[in-house]
């Protein structure tokens, strides 16, 4: 019987053939924690006397959620990670280097790998054809120390996407639409596999946007087969030798197949307070916006910033609307500087922040006031997400966000493109 991508990768790491529903112990290739989850992971290992790393070069501690530190408690938490890195030789990604998921795809994860990370959006690396999934501090701590974990082999939903996007419609609009269809818990415990001609024609950055949000439908990971685009991306990052083709068998068994015609999609928005609360930008046009946030592991890459810069060039944010831009990594930041995007943002009245998670986590750098509305390119709009339960978060593509920053209210970006 044919295998899905999830069954193939998990089987290789379990040392036997597996099928959906099996529970197996697997070796893990890459482990990651961030500054919100890492200190607890380290404390758990200290508690059981297991301060060690099986694979230090591929274990990464990211200081990205509260970076630079906004208060002394978090500064002390950061030092727990720095100390563990010194003791065990694992990699530390310091303040300003960027969001863990972006750094992981740029530098650490390869097709066919298993990655477990103590952050729910670890599913992002699935776009490289790697089985990558979020877990809690203790699961990942044990993964760091022993180089293994237990997994239930997930059933897979195949998302088959055909057709070309219309102008003003992007990968973000596609994934918001898909989550609206599946529901916020419609794929709980499942893997998503994105496939079809539209996916094959996408850049890696666009694919990362899709995989990043798989967890917003409850899924364990969002997989995409590795192909020539993946290969070119790895070559660009200096690890072309790590490429290998990973794809599902033609007769793989899927629990559900969802067909999407990309040419029928419009710019989409998730309205408060759940990601599956989707509408078109047109339907929500006119909603007053106090803050626009462009960045994150979902949409803080070079092409995202380029789309926003093109719309903002020579324009200015609305006087009643703040604009915050946070590149996803230093690499992205440098390229955006060279391309002139950063200058465009500053001239448009934006606050450009250091690479990191920034405003998305609700720790700092853009906490909403009572009753305020934020339109953000991030992946989550839960009540309280941006530091205030009285705030209202809408999610969109960078194009919709940039166009809305100028208008001071939600607009359909096709009006300005």
């Amino acid at each position: 019987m044919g295998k899905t991508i999830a069954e193939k990768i998990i089987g290789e790491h379990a040392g036997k053939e597996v099928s959906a529903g099996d529970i197996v112990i697997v070796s893990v290739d890459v482990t990651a924690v961030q500054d919100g989850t890492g200190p607890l992971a380290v404390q758990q290992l200290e508690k059981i006397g297991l301060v060690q790393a099986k694979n230090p070069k591929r274990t990464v501690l990211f200081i990205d959620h509260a970076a630079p530190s906004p208060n002394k408690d978090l500064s002390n938490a950061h030092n727990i990670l720095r100390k563990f890195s010194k003791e065990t030789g694992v990699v530390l990604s310091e303040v300003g280097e960027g969001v863990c998921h972006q750094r992981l795809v740029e530098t650490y994860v390869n097709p066919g790998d298993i990655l477990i990370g103590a952050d729910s959006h670890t599913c992002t690396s699935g776009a490289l054809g790697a089985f990558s999934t979020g877990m809690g501090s203790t699961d990942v701590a044990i993964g760091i120390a022993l180089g293994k974990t237990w997994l239930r082999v997930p059933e897979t939903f195949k998302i088959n996407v055909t057709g070309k996007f219309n102008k003003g419609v992007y990968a973000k609009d596609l994934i918001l639409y898909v989550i609206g269809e599946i529901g916020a818990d419609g794929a709980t415990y499942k893997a998503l596999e994105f496939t079809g001609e539209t996916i094959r024609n996408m850049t890696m950055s666009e694919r990362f946007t899709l995989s990043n949000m798989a967890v917003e439908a409850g899924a364990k990971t969002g997989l995409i087969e590795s192909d020539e685009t993946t290969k070119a991306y790895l070559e660009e990052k200096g690890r072309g030798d790590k490429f290998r083709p990973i794809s599902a068998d033609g007769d793989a068994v899927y629990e559900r197949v969802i067909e999407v015609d990309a040419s029928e999609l419009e710019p989409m928005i998730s309205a408060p307070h759940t990601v599956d609360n989707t509408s078109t930008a047109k339907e929500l046009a006119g909603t007053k916006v106090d803050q626009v946030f462009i960045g994150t592991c979902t949409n803080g890459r070079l092409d995202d910033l380029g789309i926003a810069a093109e719309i903002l060039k020579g324009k200015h944010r609305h006087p009643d609307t703040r604009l915050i831009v946070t590149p996803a990594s230093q690499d992205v930041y440098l390229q955006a500087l060279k391309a002139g995007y950063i200058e465009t943002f500053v001239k448009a009245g934006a606050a450009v922040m250091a690479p990191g998670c920034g405003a998305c986590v609700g720790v700092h750098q853009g906490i909403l006031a009572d009753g305020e509305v934020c339109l953000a390119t991030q992946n989550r709009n839960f009540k309280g997400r941006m530091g205030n339960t009285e705030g209202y978060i809408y999610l969109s593509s960078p194009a919709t966000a940039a166009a809305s920053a100028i208008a001071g209210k939600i607009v359909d970006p096709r009006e300005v493109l």
Partner: protein
Amino acid sequence: MEAKLNGKAWKFGDDISTDLIAPGRLFHLRTNLPELAKHVLEDADPEFPKKVQKGDFVVAGSNFGLGSSREHAPTIIKLAGVNAVLAKSFARIFYRNGINVGLPLLICDTDRIDEGDELEVDMSAGIVKDLTKGIEITFSPLPDVMIKILNDGGLAAHIAKYGDFNLD
């Protein structure tokens, strides 16, 4: 783990996210879990941290614990003295985390349970008795691997005991 758990039900709705259980605005308290536990679920019900008593149950709708991977969320529910969380369904990462920190998570039909009902949960029989209403509700058994981890007191304790996974 005790076979029978007794306590009062505190009712919550669907889609209770980890942001509502352990908010991002309290990120700096994550290395001080007893302090963070004083705010458990307060963004879903501001009075909950004051009302909850040792041995009580959190009873919710579907997709409990969606969102972030923060293990602090189930940890502070346990630290607040909660015996178990009953919900129609749990988000995946929260489900693993709850078991890993030794907090029983029971999947059952919670519609018939109301706030304040006295519950008795029989872990081995897989039955929730609503003593206030005089009804019995069955819950789905946990996978065997999770029962083993839970019985060892969580994942860290399991690994400390065997030096490795011992789930067969």
